[in-house]
């Protein structure tokens, strides 16, 4: 079973990537069966529900773990890729993008099933390079700069992660994640900081608005749907296995949720709004490590759908959109996506969000409810965009839109958590959010300081957050 899944999840996409690179293929239709194979395999394994821990290659080999959490991430990976491919299936993609998509899919699967610290390092560096090339493909000047900033910040984060691996190995003698409890606390903080750079968590994720704001919509959909989750999935594993990380990661998640929502509320550019909400949703995923993967799949789906829909908008600033209004074939997906992210019951986001909020208590619960309220307020901006006439409804139900809608509804129906109290609570939050938006935020123009997103600042803040962790949680 292990060899079969490794070969399908990782080696098959790599083979296709190499062949496409050799043949210089440009149509993404060829790759569709690949994503379908991954999703089907993940679905079967999820239904079986057993978890297998395998060591690949003898005594000091790489350890892999196939448990429900990793299969959920793999399923999300497959579904997001199907959705994105469906939406770009007619376009003639730039030369390198099909092989890159195949390899990104294989590496993302490798990160989700990996149980070995150093293997995660290599896979995440590879994803960093692929994301760099993806952002860079549309060669506008600003994209060149944001892709270089992304790679520099990611590389410095990964150097910290490598130092953490060193201390881990010298303390325990192996890179497997089972030895995490025996690793000194500072090494865990280094690992957490390295992964939170790639996962876009709190201050370490400040490269997200710049990278998302500039990349093409399909690239942003992949970036937010899959690449950010490749940083978050190992963080979830870390939080489950190491007692030190179990204290650090929820606090980081809390800060990330609040920070992302505040900036999302007052942003005037739709892509920046989605980027900031990715930072805050990363907080939602990480707040309860045990149930994180359930929320991650819903977030991956509706965030990538929102980015694909936002890509078709005539302009990115809200003032202009308010004046001109948007056609129905873009308005409908945006509306459903915004409702899903604010937690509307049937639409994907509700099940996992209520499960997570149910498990919290005391101060974290209040703060997370505030964050949910903030999300509702910030996405009210999208929901209340005026509808311009002249759009034909037929194009609204595009192939990828239908696919996303179906998978979101299925996601909520299968793993839903439909306590009546929660349905009322969520509807109250969404209603309050819309009221606050109409009353206050839509009128006031608050300009939040964005100077923190300079390259030197992000790199410096990595070490400040690291120092805070050491001070607060003790070395």
């Amino acid at each position, binding site marked *: 079973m292990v060899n079969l899944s490794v*070969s399908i999840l990782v*080696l098959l996409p790599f*083979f296709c990537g190499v062949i496409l690179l050799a043949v210089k293929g440009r149509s993404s239709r060829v790759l569709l069966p690949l994503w379908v194979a991954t999703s089907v395999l993940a679905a079967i394994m999820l239904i079986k529900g057993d978890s297998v821990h395998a060591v690949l290659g003898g005594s000091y080999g790489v350890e892999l773990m196939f448990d429900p959490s990793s299969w959920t991430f793999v399923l999300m990976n497959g579904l997001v890729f199907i959705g994105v491919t469906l939406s770009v299936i007619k376009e003639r993609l730039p030369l*390198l993008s099909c092989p890159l998509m195949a390899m990104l899919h294989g590496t993302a699967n490798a990160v989700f099933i990996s149980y070995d610290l150093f293997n995660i390092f290599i896979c995440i*560096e590879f994803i960093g390079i692929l994301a*760099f*090339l993806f952002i860079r493909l549309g060669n506008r000047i600003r994209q060149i700069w944001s892709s270089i900033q992304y790679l520099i910040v990611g590389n410095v984060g990964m150097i910290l992660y490598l130092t953490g691996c060193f201390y881990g190995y010298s303390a325990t003698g192996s890179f497997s994640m089972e030895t995490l409890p025996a690793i000194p606390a500072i090494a865990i903080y280094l690992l957490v900081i390295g992964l939170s750079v790639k996962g876009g968590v709190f201050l370490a994720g400040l490269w997200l608005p710049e990278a998302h704001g500039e990349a093409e919509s399909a690239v942003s959909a992949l970036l937010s749907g899959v690449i950010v989750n490749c940083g978050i999935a190992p963080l979830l594993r870390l939080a489950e296995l190491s007692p030190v990380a179990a204290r650090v990661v929820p606090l980081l998640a809390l800060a990330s949720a609040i920070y992302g929502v505040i900036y999302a509320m007052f942003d005037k550019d739709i892509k920046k709004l989605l980027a900031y909400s990715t930072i805050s949703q990363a907080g939602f995923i990480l707040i309860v490590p045990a149930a994180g993967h359930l929320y991650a799949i819903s977030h991956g789906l509706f965030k990538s759908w929102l980015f694909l829909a936002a890509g078709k908008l005539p302009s990115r600033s809200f003032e202009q959109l308010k004046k001109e209004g948007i056609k129905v074939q873009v308005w409908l997906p945006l509306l459903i996506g915004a409702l899903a992210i604010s937690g509307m019951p049937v639409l994907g986001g509700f099940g996992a969000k209520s499960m997570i909020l149910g498990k919290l208590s005391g101060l974290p619960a209040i703060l997370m409810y505030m964050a949910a309220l903030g999300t509702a307020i910030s996405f009210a901006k999208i929901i209340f965009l005026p509808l311009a006439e002249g759009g034909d409804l037929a194009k609204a139900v595009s192939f990828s839109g239908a696919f996303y809608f179906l998978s979101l509804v299925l996601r909520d129906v299968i793993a839903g958590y439909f306590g009546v109290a929660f349905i009322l609570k969520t509807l109250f939050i969404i209603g309050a959010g819309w009221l606050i938006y109409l009353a206050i935020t839509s009128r006031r123009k608050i300009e939040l300081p964005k100077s923190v997103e300079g390259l030197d600042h992000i790199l410096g803040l990595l*070490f*400040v957050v*690291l120092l805070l962790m050491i001070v607060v949680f003790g070395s």
Partner: protein
Amino acid sequence: MRIKFDIRKAYFAAAIVVVALLAVIPRTDLGREYNAALIAAKAGIPNTVTAIYLKNRLYDTMFEVMVFSISISGALYFLKKENKFHLEDTLFTDPATIIIFRGCAMLSFLSACALATVGHLSPGGGFAAGVAFGTSMVIQSLISDRNHLSNYLSMERPERFEKSSWMLILAISLLTFSGIIPSNGIWGSLLSGGWVPLLNILIMIKVGLGTWALSLGFLDHKWIF
């Protein structure tokens, strides 16, 4: 946006404190000096480092080959897109340089073969061999004139070589994962240790052609030389 100088000093001060705490962590890495014997016995190869990174942890090395190749093709994607100025035929016409260059090319090619073929017996890695092989090709392409080079070694043939060796590496790693490994053979002989010698040579070809393609890209782009 004038970055006030003191903020970055504060960042660096935080970094100094973190690194100081890192330096003081007590060391506990004793008692791991017998790993080598254990691994060598199982893999049947004297050089345990090659045994690990080409047999036990082949999964990582496969990713490493992917990373190297994608970054080379990413860089070439940019280099080929750029329009090229006209290029003189030969870059070094002075006979003395040509002779020295030809000597260096042969020397680095020999060292590449040594590093690759005997990589599993004595220290020497597939990647180092690849870089040496790439350098010898680059030096050779420097001294032969451009159109002779382009029709003789046009990029299509090495391109196919590179892609096929890449796919062979992936195929062999799949076989190793599923346990289909030829017998270890005689200890210390040239063909001992399952797929390791073949993998070493394939990685040499792959990395060598990658480095050579990158340098040719620079050559065409009139950046270097």
